[in-house]
């Protein structure tokens, strides 16, 4: 390997030339699309891309972006990775976006990147799940519904379904997701206060992975024949749970409920595995995120209950916007919703 040093030198020189060429191009390039058009450029990042729930959010977000004249980039990681989210935020800072909206997989790990975004003068909004408020300094949290109303609705539906007593288990998504952990804490409190005869098994954490959720449900069904109810509290967990219960031949015997999308749960309503479930309108959540961010950017977001774009009765207080109470779906009303 005697030639290596000279090759190293050659590589380094070429690398420097490449960089220099890049710098040269960079200096005359900053006035590209975003600045020239003077439209706000907004980046919106789901917890992960390619799942029905966030596809529905994207639909609403695009609707608002078209209505309000915003250039929207909707992109995110393919798995529930907070690190990839943080890297993508840095990318968006470098790209010079005006607004960044994110549903963090981990409130703490994305916070430094969000803080850098704020320091660069970018408006930072969280939606679906919040980031660490003090560490990130985010400007606004667009909440789908108050955590209380979600947690309480879930528990009430479950308790009604299993007759107020028995054994139940929660299947969640990512262990660090702030919204899920809030709901679980509220659900546990509600159970203790109102339904002390319902016993909860340790929560299952499949990390937003449908195969893992199916497997974990099958395992808990085998290990606990006395189980009465299962709560799948993410849009991926509920259908996975329902499929697992249906496969075990115990549809109707185990009360399955949770949070998911009508289009996803419909087959399980039809085969009788799921009777009732809970969700807000994710299309509206996406819409509200973009619309509220735009109002905030123009300093037109005031406190109080008010219409935002096409949405009525949005609750704005300080740095939080709430979409409204969750909807309880069953076979009588599910036909009204297409998302």
């Amino acid at each position, binding site marked *: 390997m005697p030639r290596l040093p000279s090759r190293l030198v050659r590589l380094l020189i*070429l690398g420097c030339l490449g960089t220099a060429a*890049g710098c040269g191009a960079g200096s005359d390039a900053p006035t590209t699309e975003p600045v020239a058009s003077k439209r706000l450029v907004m980046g919106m990042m789901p917890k992960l891309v390619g799942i029905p729930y966030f596809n529905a959010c994207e639909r609403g977000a695009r609707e608002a972006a078209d209505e309000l004249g915003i250039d929207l980039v909707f*992109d*995110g990681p393919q798995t529930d990775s907070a690190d990839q989210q943080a890297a993508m935020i840095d*990318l968006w*800072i*470098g790209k*010079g976006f005006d607004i960044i909206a994110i549903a963090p997989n981990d409130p703490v790990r994305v916070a430094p990147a969000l803080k850098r975004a704020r320091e660069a003068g970018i408006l930072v909004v969280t939606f679906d799940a919040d980031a660490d408020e003090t560490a990130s300094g985010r400007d606004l949290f667009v909440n789908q519904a108050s955590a209380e109303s979600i947690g309480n609705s879930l528990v009430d539906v479950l308790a009604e379904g299993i007759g107020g007593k028995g054994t139940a288990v929660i299947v969640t998504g990512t262990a660090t997701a702030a919204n899920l952990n809030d709901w679980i804490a509220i659900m546990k409190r509600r159970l203790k206060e109102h339904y002390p005869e319902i016993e909860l098994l340790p929560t299952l954490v499949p990390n937003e992975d449908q195969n893992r959720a199916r497997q974990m449900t099958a395992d808990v069904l085998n290990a606990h024949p006395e189980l009465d109810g299962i709560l799948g509290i993410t849009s991926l967990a509920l259908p996975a749970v329902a499929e697992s219960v249906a496969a075990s031949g115990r549809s109707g015997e185990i009360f399955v409920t949770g949070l998911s999308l009508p289009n996803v749960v419909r087959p399980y309503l039809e085969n009788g595995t799921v009777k009732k479930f809970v969700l807000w309108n994710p299309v509206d959540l996406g819409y509200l995120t973009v619309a509220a961010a735009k109002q905030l950017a123009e300093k037109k977001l005031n406190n109080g209950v008010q219409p935002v774009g096409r949405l009525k009765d949005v609750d704005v207080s300080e740095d939080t916007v709430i979409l409204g109470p969750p909807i309880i779906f069953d076979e009588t009303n599910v036909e009204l919703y297409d998302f």
Partner: protein
Amino acid sequence: MRTAWLSTATRLLPVAILGLMVWLVFRYAARPSYVPQLWRPWAEIGMLALAMTPVILIGGIDLSIGSIVALSGVVIGVLWRDAQLVWPIAVLGGVLTGFLAGSFNGVLALVGIAPLVATLATMALYAGIALALCGVQPVSGMPAGFTILGQGSLGVIPLQLFYFAIATIIFYVLVHHTVFGRYLYAMGDNRLAARFAAVPVRGMEWAVYALSGTMAGLVAVAYTARGGGIRADTTQGMELVVIACVVLGGTRVTGGAGGIPRTLLGIAIIANLEIALGFLGGTRLTLPGLNVSFAIDAHSRQVVIGVLMVGLAIWNERLSQRRLS
């Protein structure tokens, strides 16, 4: 004459790709001074790739480094949060954990277990220990004196790039200008011959894995500081990116050929490719003359990276075959 020209072109192709990537990155950056910030996580990957290079040079592989980063990070976090130690002690504990984990890999390798099997097993083992230590509750809110190690910058240059530069010099000298380095190539070329030539094969085997583990422990410091805390399962898949950087640069996965400059090339290409594609995210590309357009999103990004890697792998293979013949 013609083959000489071809072989120069062949060798320069990856450099040309790198130049194109760097140009794209700066072309699409509205804030060029922010670009070094985007290299920050890649400098951590780069340090791991430097330490992976000796492992691959002797024909080994270390699949456990992602798990070691997680484990060392968790040890730092747990020593600080649960054992209530001051952070410098916690950091020492984390680096020591990396050394011990790497040493254990080395011991498995030197007793003759195939490194692919050994480190596949320890990948699961270390990740499992990290999860057990940390639980589902991630460590967060670590003190500012510590987090500056991973979040600080000198001017516009993130500290990680300085760590990476220092590590590069050390590994360059180690691999290309020491007896240790010559032993690496000898072992990768022909282990039996190296043993008969009195190369301390078993000691070398242990050393490269211990070195790789220690580097993972050091990277865990920057990694944990960068996030202000640690979660036990965030480094999944990291090892594959690291290995990709090494072999894409042109170090032979069967050992014996390659080196630090090639690893630098590999890391620079992958990092800037990812960043360039990220910048293009959300835009639509239309192929001129064809009625085809596609959006650059998470899925097409994977496709582009995959295609480029296959292309470079074939290129590298041709290169090394010509050299052998």
